[in-house]
């Protein structure tokens, strides 16, 4: 592990295992989703987060329950780590009305009011302006919450990225920007999408404090996120965190991955955040094989239960088709 002791403060056994469990839940959940996709239980677009779990797990560990979250179409990990039950997420993947968005959203649009999860947003860059507004809104109400916005490095080329960072900085809005730089936007490599490939340096154009962190190292991510959250919560304005990561799987289920070499993928897999953290916990004696085995079977049970829950879920009646376009009168 590259992280120095000072960024891994007070790593209790309990907290370590909870980080590991969070990553494992995401991993096993998504492996199941891939399977269910081939069975046509899950349809539409499915974007897997496998390989990037350390980011959602690490950042969420640094947040308070009332902080707002906006993510992208690749948001199963964030949804699970934010506290939405696996049952609700899986049912949403199925499109059942027991799903977190009552089935209307599917994989790309997981929402949850209780977790302040303001959605998977499937327009690249589209979540950034609302995140600034969430932060601004909390600040104007004197609330201590912040807004966290996850997005890929591909979104950095969009105009909305630029507008949002400038607004957040001007307004000292409590926003944590988390760029998940996995080196590719679909098949477009970073050097084809950005003339300046050091993404975190772009923040300086807006006088936003930023740092870059190893996104394959959950402890480093959490430590950086804690620094960032503390900064933002003190009212010092937005913070930009670049997490260098890699997606192990295809962009979506329709991707022949012509744009990258198998060796590159394999090299990154050597840095698997789950394996790496687990190994390290063993090395320092914080956890043992039996802990991992127990965790695997707990997670497997949770995944199995979520599939059962989703299978048992119900289809919204067609007569409800026009629901939720407008708020019913008198209900708000």
């Amino acid at each position, binding site marked *: 592990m590259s992280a120095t002791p000072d960024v891994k403060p007070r790593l209790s056994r309990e907290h370590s295992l909870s980080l590991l469990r969070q990553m494992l839940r995401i991993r096993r959940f998504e492996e199941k989703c891939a399977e269910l996709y081939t069975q046509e239980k899950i349809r539409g677009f499915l974007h897997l987060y496998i390989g990037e779990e350390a980011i959602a797990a690490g950042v969420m560990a640094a947040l308070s329950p009332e902080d707002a979250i906006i993510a992208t179409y690749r948001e199963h990990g964030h949804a699970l780590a934010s506290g939405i039950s696996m049952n609700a997420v899986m049912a949403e993947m199925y499109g059942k009305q027991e799903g977190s968005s009552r089935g209307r959203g599917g994989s790309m649009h997981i929402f949850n009011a209780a977790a302040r999860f303001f959605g998977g947003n499937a327009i690249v860059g589209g979540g950034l*302006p609302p995140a*600034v*507004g969430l932060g601004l809104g*909390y600040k104007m109400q004197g609330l201590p919450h912040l807004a966290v916005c996850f997005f890929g490095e591909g979104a950095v080329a969009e105009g909305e990225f630029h*507008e949002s960072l400038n*607004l957040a900085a001007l307004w000292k809005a409590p926003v944590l920007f988390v760029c998940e730089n996995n080196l590719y936007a679909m098949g477009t490599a970073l050097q084809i999408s950005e003339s300046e490939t050091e993404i975190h340096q772009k923040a300086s154009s807006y006088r936003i404090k930023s740092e870059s962190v190893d996104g394959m190292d959950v402890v480093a991510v959490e430590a950086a996120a804690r620094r960032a959250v503390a900064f933002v919560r003190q009212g010092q304005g937005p913070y930009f965190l670049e997490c260098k990561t890699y997606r192990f799987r295809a962009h979506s289920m329709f991707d022949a991955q012509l744009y990258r070499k198998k060796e590159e993928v394999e090299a990154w897999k050597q840095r698997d955040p789950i394996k790496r953290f687990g190994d390290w916990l063993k090395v320092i004696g914080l956890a043992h094989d039996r802990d991992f085995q127990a965790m695997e079977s707990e997670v497997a049970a949770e995944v199995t239960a979520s599939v059962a829950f989703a299978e048992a879920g119900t289809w919204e009646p067609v007569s409800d088709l026009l629901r*939720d*376009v407008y708020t019913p009168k008198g209900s708000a």
Partner: protein
Amino acid sequence: MSERAPEQVATTYREAVRAGLREALQREPRAFLMGEDIGRYGGCYAVTKGMLDEFGPERIRDTPLSESGFVGAGIGAAMAGMRPIVEVMTCNFSLLCLDQILNNAATIRHMSGGQFSVPIVIRMATGAGRQLAAQHSHSLEGWYAHIPGIRVLAPATLEDGRGMLWTAMNDPDPVLIFENIMLYNMGGTIDAAAGAVDIDRAVVRRPGRDVSLLTYGGSLWKTLEAAATLKEQGIDAEVIDLRTLRPLDDATIMESVRKTRRAVIVDEGWRSGSISAEIATRIVEQAFWSLDAPITRVCTEEVPIPYPKHLEDAALPSREKIEAAVRKVVGR
């Protein structure tokens, strides 16, 4: 109970809109305004003049030129519990934030399965007539009315200019208000206590028997003038102010058309694909057998608006064109 005539005060449309905005800020602590040059400059059309001094820079928030950014921020602030009233200086610039309007504001409630409403109000100036040429003379309100999930208002009168704002702000869903630039200087008197107005119904501004003239916004006044002239020629036209373009008030429209059996629609949008087509089609769908003549439209010619006055005038609906269309429809 002793009845007193309500006190009437002289005002302009500009002042009426401002009164509506001031009232919103006075009565609703969560309300704030944001937009380009609404504060220090006093508003492109001087609507918000003086409000910065009264309410301060937090609630009269000047934004940079970042339409997508600040409209999106308004969406976020609305979800955070605020009641943002966002000014997009003119609808000509609103294309830059259309993604936020369509893919977020109009859609989040549905995608989230009804968990998050977006109570944002977006005001824009609209319309031609000031020789501002091709890029600054659009009339897009009818076009916006295509989008499910939003409401589209077109206040034409002093009362509506003032009163629609409060109703819109208390609507749990996104409301777009289009103010025609030719109306701002319009003077008149208004009930000093004028307040919120209903936004669900179209209104008969002039009853008549021979033909229904359906219109809204800046065209209302041209249409009423035409109706006055036509009356002298023995044609008794009913003039309906649609007021809300989405959702359309079919009941009021059909009631009128069933009575007069003839309809002319006056609409400042470019003819093809304008809201006038939707209105005509609904009449066909719902009142076909009542029609004694083809429905006729008076719209803007299909040309970007030219700068010279004589060409701009020729491109737009005019009193003369309305009169000619009506005479044709009634066969006189």
